[in-house]
């Protein structure tokens, strides 16, 4: 049993070490976002000055607004299309269903850089849409739909469909049934998919960078342009802190809605 005890210790040390390495950068970033040192990586005094500076930085504010706008539009389009698709896949048998299920996954299977590059070439050289909000949103929706489809589909396998039949039997038409029965039943999954897609779109750098063209600087693109040449500064630390804390909120929300779904 002695060797077993030793391997347990090794295992524990390894786990602690990996957790530390995984989290050290984030913690350092958060800590130094409160340091008054203006080079951003050494500690002087506690300050919240950089957060106020962040708020007054027009470039950051605009980038943030763009990112939120793009993510919101993406969430709406992807969630609506995804919910419809999930319903179609769940309720109907049709030719090419298997193919459709597989093809839907393509955008999240193929490498981001390929999605990004292929859309860039397609927009600029084939269908000639000027790069801008439209192209970015098209790109984001493409890689967000699969998430929505499979989150909603997962929920559909667990809900009580007799309610829908009952509503139809009682004389409600298709639209009323959707509005009064189907959507409320699916709501937890729809919200979960929205909560999942928002950061997915908000965080995306690669695809946005390729499809945005000049001028549409989203927050990740702003960050990239700052760090590309090795700038380390307190303002980026504060942006990073927000990026790190945002998913905490997202995951807690998800958790909340999933618990609700269980009821």
């Amino acid at each position, binding site marked *: 049993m002695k060797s077993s005890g030793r391997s347990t210790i090794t295992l524990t040390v390894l786990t602690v070490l990996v957790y530390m390495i995984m989290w050290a950068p984030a913690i350092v970033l958060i800590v130094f976002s409160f340091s008054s040192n203006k080079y951003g990586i050494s500690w002087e005094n506690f300050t919240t000055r950089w957060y106020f500076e962040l708020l007054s930085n027009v470039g950051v504010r605009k980038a943030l607004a763009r990112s939120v706008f793009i993510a919101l539009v993406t969430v709406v389009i992807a969630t609506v*299309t995804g919910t419809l*698709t999930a319903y179609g896949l769940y309720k109907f048998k049709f030719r090419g269903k298997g193919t459709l299920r597989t093809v839907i996954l*393509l955008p999240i299977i193929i490498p981001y850089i390929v999605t990004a*590059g292929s859309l860039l070439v397609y927009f600029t050289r084939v269908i000639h849409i000027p790069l801008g909000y439209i192209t970015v949103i098209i790109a984001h929706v493409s890689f967000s739909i699969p998430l929505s489809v499979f989150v909603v589909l997962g929920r559909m396998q667990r809900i009580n469909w007799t309610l829908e039949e009952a509503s139809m039997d009682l004389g409600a038409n298709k639209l009323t049934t959707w509005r009064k029965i189907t959507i409320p039943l699916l709501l937890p999954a729809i919200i979960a998919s929205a909560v999942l897609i928002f950061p997915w779109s908000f*965080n995306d750098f690669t695809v946005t960078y390729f499809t945005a063209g000049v001028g549409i600087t989203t927050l990740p693109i702003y960050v990239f342009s700052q760090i590309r040449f090795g700038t*380390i500064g307190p303002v980026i630390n504060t942006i990073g802190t927000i990026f790190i804390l945002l998913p*905490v909120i997202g995951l807690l929300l998800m958790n909340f809605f999933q618990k609700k779904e269980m009821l």
Partner: protein
Amino acid sequence: MQLNNFIEKNKKRSGKGPKKFLAAQAHLPYVGPISIWIILFVIAPLGVVLYFSFLTRSPVGKIINIFTLENYQNFFQGKYGIIFLKTLLYSFETNILCLFLGYPIAYWIVKYGGRWKTTLIFFVILPSWTCYLIRLYALKTIVGRAGLINSLLLNLNLISSPLEILYNPYAVVFGLVYTWLPFMILPVYASLEGLDPSISEASVDLGATPFQRFFTVTLPLTKGGIIAGSILVFIPTLGEWLVPMLLGGAKVMMAGNLVYHYFVIIGNVPAGCSVATVLTSLVLLIIYLSIKFGGEGALERIV
């Protein structure tokens, strides 16, 4: 016009009245939009990339309709060929490292996590929800030239000038492991968690040492998780470009950086398309094999 033709054709084929036909098309309002979307914005762009990859680039950057295999030949030869091989190598190394780090951690969480299991997994997932550009930047604040390690060593007078920790293949593989490790831990954790404890108890009762128990019982039973994790790590790593760009600089390039280089920096679209096609084919091949050997729903389970 085309729609009419389509309807006519279908009517003839099914030989039923228009009403029955309409009922048979009831799925269209639901799956129609996505089909159009995917054809327009997923299939078509990929098709265009495939097509362009066989065309020639004129000196001014226009794409000329002359068939050539040169783009592919260039990619597999010389310095670009080496980049391709290195991409495979780094992805493979990353995968192995993620497995050797991720498996023990998943194992530890399942065995000793107790009521903290969910929290521990939460802290594994969390980083993958953060913009990974930020994570790489955070990494740089520690190991970068002006980072924490260097400033610490300088202050302790252990070194006289900052060490260059970044911009070598090790830094890139480290960054890749750092980025993609959660995707190995999660599926392995799920498969370990799904194990029936009585099986491993039975092996103990039958006299297996902990060592034997792990290698003849636990490990084979969690093969599914290992394969899923490997796919989730290997595929995104193959197409990686930000990690090599930010941690490898100009010295360490991967195929993804070539795509960026061709498309954005020098505007050689056909060459970029050939790299993209090779990457896509590789990924689809891996997925195909995993479906073939992992069964129908394997892909959806993974995702």
